[in-house]
């Protein structure tokens, strides 16, 4: 990975709508070189997607999110990967991490209510072969996600004009 690509990633992480021309100006680079670098990052799947961070708590259509700790017995040859894939293919699953420590997979599930998540856990997740146990924790409030504070109280408190 080049220095330029690293810098581009940092700036896009702050705001993915920044275009090649703006990035080129900020980084004192050639616009075409920036365009190439971004294309390369996309092709290598380093830039996976340009997504939006949404504060769903402010949307009337309420969503419920739960973190589920899952213990599994790994498969010969495939380890945890095959069962992880089996789980992450469910559309209600938002993230899956392989963890060190007391359990194996951390699964984040989103639903329209408690019942949806409950039924996912009992009907789909628990019934999978090799899933030994699950522990479900409902998220009550999101304060910060991906480094972004939802209700930022820091703001800009500076005086509007100063010497």
């Amino acid at each position: 990975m080049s220095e330029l690509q690293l810098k581009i990633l940092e700036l896009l992480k702050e705001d993915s709508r920044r275009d090649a021309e703006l990035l080129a100006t900020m980084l004192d680079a050639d616009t075409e070189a920036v365009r190439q670098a971004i294309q390369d990052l996309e092709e290598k799947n380093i830039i996976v997607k340009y997504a939006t961070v949404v504060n769903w708590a402010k949307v009337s259509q309420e969503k419920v999110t739960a973190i589920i700790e899952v213990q599994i017995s790994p498969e010969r040859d495939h380890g945890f990967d095959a069962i992880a894939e089996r789980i992450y293919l469910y559309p209600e699953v938002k993230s899956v991490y392989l963890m060190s420590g007391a359990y194996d997979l951390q699964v984040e599930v989103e639903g329209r209510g408690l019942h949806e998540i409950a039924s996912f856990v009992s009907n789909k997740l628990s019934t999978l072969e090799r899933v030994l146990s699950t522990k479900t924790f409902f998220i009550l409030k999101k304060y910060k996600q991906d480094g972004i504070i939802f209700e930022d109280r820091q703001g800009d408190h500076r005086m509007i004009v100063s010497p």
Partner: protein
Amino acid sequence: MKRYITPLVQSIPPSGIRKFFDLASGSKDIISLGVGEPDFVTPWRFRDAAVNGLELGRTSYTHNAGLPELREEIANYLHKSFGVKYEPKDEVLVTVGGSEAIDLALRALIAPGDEVLIPEPSYVSYSPIVSIIGGVANGIETFAKDQFKLTAESLEAAITPRTKVLIVSYPSNPTGGIMTREDWEPIAKLVEKHDLIVISDEIYAELTYGSKHVSFASLPGMHDRTIIVSGFSKAFAMTGWRIGYACGHPDIIGAMLKIHQYTIMCAPIMAQLAAMEALRNGMEEKDRMMESYNQRRRLIVKGFRDIGLDCHEPQGAFYAFPSIAKTGLTSDEFATRLLLEGKVAAVPGNVFGKGGEGFVRCSYATSVANITQALERIDQFVQSLRIVAH
């Protein structure tokens, strides 16, 4: 009650920035490029050092000159970063912001009638402080064609038998101009020749783009003739903490300390603790902020040039100083109308003294989104002027 105020203080005009502040504060939906301080909040670990100090009960006075450990860190830092050596014991004084250090230095050096030279456009405080003390402040005009550098010819022309002090401040607020070693050399010769003392306000020393800052004190023979004034406000995003310092010859620092101990006693201890953490473990944070300023600097300079305003390349600080002469408006008219019609606050160049007319100061210590939108608004405003003119 005006009659009780001394004629001297009455004669000093209020800051031109103040008038603009009042105007801007009364308007709505303004994007401000008028702010002379970082847009970063003080990095968490510096704040935490102050909190930790409070929890441990560090709430006392400190040594008048500042915590000995902090003075040591300041001396180490100046040596490592700019190659200038100071003895922490009697050549370093911790002050309430760089502002206090400037005031102390001038009060220690200037007797009524002594003349002080100030290259302008410059920071707004020097000349009023000189006047309050009874000195005579004389501006030396610098020009965009010279990248607002101080030239030996203009300095020599301004020196009189009463000239005692030269105040230099590079990187410059408001112009973004800097002085290289080559630029300084002929200045140092004149300082020697005319037996001047130099107050070098190096508050923006860490904010240079391209070439590293050259401290005036690092020039041959200039160590004892220079008082370095600096602080933590800009590089470490610590404006509200009010921690600065002065370094120089023990005789001068000693004289400044005398005034400081009677008027201020010492800088607040919790802010000194935070500053110490900044010097010990804050360089990475500082570099991160620096890089971000540089990215925004490129954006705003290109923006002004695309709009068709001449903008010299600022080499330091966080201000662009575009020329608005083409619009046919004065700085004050331009800035006032830009505020009221274009909804962007910038500071008219004339408030910074000689050579400032025809320019506006635009701080890029604000978000990329703000800069982009402000540039769009300025573009529209400048175009609206053209339509009227034709």
